[in-house]
């Protein structure tokens, strides 16, 4: 369960102050598939960055399993992310000098899991996204959809509690987008994985169980789909 209370994020540019999030309060139960939607500049990605500890809120709290995550220092946040979170970026964010399997292995190696075990788990994760035949391909040798599936494999290989996805289909064609969303649905249903996905496409938000619509840094709609 994630509990977000009065979350505020302000950006200052010289004398101008922009309030990107105006005191968001909501809860995400374990195993929920949540879509955060809204227009450009509504605060979707900013919300995701706060929840995933990539950014620090100006005020408010994010409580997970009874721990206030906003109080963690940078090193603690890195360790927390490593163990508990999976992250999928809009532009796949794979390391160009690592093969698909090596990209997926990386979080496991960082956790101190041995090479053999990491190789095995990476293979299983890639098999889960139907890329077991592309283990040794570099990102440059994969299509956009395939790269995003590698990115999904990397984000789930270590068994995270929450999967964050920032516009995961934004750079993909319809066919690839459907494949990615199908994988999300499977992970949510079979693995009971909590997924928080930001998207600006309302039709993709419909596959989630719940949709929060943001506008100008505030929740304007919070509904179960």
């Amino acid at each position, binding site marked *: 369960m994630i509990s977000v209370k009065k979350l505020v994020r302000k950006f200052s540019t010289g004398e101008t102050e922009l309030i990107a999030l105006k005191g968001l309060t909501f809860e995400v139960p374990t195993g929920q598939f949540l879509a955060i939607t809204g227009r450009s500049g509504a605060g979707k990605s900013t919300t995701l960055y706060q929840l*995933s500890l990539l950014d620090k809120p100006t005020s408010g709290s994010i409580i997970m399993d009874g721990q206030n995550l906003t109080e963690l220092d940078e090193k603690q946040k*890195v*360790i927390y992310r490593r163990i508990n979170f999976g992250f999928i970026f809009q532009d796949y964010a794979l390391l160009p*000098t690592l093969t698909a399997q090596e990209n997926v292995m990386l*979080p496991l190696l*960082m956790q101190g899991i041995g090479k053999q075990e990491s190789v095995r788990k990476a293979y299983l994760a890639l098999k889960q996204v139907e890329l077991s035949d592309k283990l040794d391909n570099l990102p440059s040798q994969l299509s956009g959809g395939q790269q995003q599936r590698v990115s999904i494999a990397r984000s789930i290989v270590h068994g995270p509690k929450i999967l964050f996805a920032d516009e995961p289909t934004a750079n993909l064609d319809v066919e690839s987008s459907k494949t990615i969303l199908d994988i999300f649905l499977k992970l949510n249903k079979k693995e009971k994985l909590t997924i928080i996905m930001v998207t600006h496409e309302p039709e993709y938000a419909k596959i989630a169980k719940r949709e929060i619509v943001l506008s100008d840094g505030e929740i304007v709609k919070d509904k179960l789909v």
Partner: protein
Amino acid sequence: MFWKDNSLYVGFFLALREIKRSSSWTTALIIFVMTLTFLNMNLVGGVLIGIVHGVIGSYKQYYSSDIIVTPSTQNDVVKDTSNVMTVVESLPTFRYASLRYTAPALIEYGYQRKVRTTDLAESAEGLLTGINPAAEDKVTHLSAAVVAGSYLNENDANGVLIGSSLIQKYASLRGQALNIGSKILKNADVGSKIRITVNGVQKEMIIRGIVSTQGTNIDSRIFLTDTLARELMGNTSLNASEIAILLKTNASAQAAKDYIVKNLHGDNDVLVQTATDALPGGVTDVINTFTILGNIVGGIALIVGAVTIFIVIFVNAITRRKYIGILKGIGISGRAIEISYILQALFYSVSGIIIAGILALWLFVPYFDLHPIHYPLANGSLAITQTEVVLRGFALSLISFISGFIPAWMVTRQNTLDSILGR
């Protein structure tokens, strides 16, 4: 600590793949630059120090040997030379000694063709040096420095060896600068008849050979047998002007000097010097200057190496700032990323060090030993030892470590989200 969270292993994992899959041309170019940097660190200093070694070596080899005994400034000869020799020969590390009898002399060539007293013959001034050819050869191997003609024999009653500085043909060969009006024998050569004047006494002699040591001290001397020299100088006392002493291999020159000084009890009023003590002030200045220059050049090369590595790693880290952000985003520690860049920096520098080290020690040093560079002061080789190369290698590696760490640290400490979004 980094080994607790596997940062070292992940850093190694990332560095290995980064090196393996980056452009081989870029990698080769960076290693090439590091090779040149390390060669520069060793070669330039090595050449300068090589000249120094050449000067010291030449001076010790042909003049002072391990210990040189000379008269004090008040005297022309070593008083009671036989007593001094008794002490010297009692030295446990004593091997051989050569007694020399010296006096300033004028040599002339072509004087036979002078018609009028105002006509000028070719002339030069040198230090007449009487030696026992066999003893001198045991101490200094002077015969090995004969570049034309032959060495003296003990019974030679009218033969001399002339230093290469005194005859134009050989002075030019050793790179000596000649000015108009230089006092030098222009046309004399091996077999020529010359006239020697010492203390007003003249004698005609024949040039048996030419001595060239690349050391001005010896190359401006005129060698002849000690018997003949003492006769010309009018020295009937058997007191020598110089005593060069060769010690047993690995014997301490300082200990030998101390022994001689102690056992002479100050009775003979002589100057006992090791080869280093005996170097003229000017040569010592040159040695100090070249040593400083060698160290400065080495230091500059070290800075160049550091800057090169810094730029390479900085550009690499800056262009991959986004990926560094992503790595941190997926939970890779900043330490693992720093280690990855440090290892890359070390790979480039150590590769350059190994290649340059092999080239320096197994190509350039043997080459310059076989083909020394001829300087007016001495023959210069490349003074580089394995220990020096290893120490400089450690220095460059350490600098590379720091130069790899700083840019990686600068980029990894940036805000993760800013790095990912390129803000």
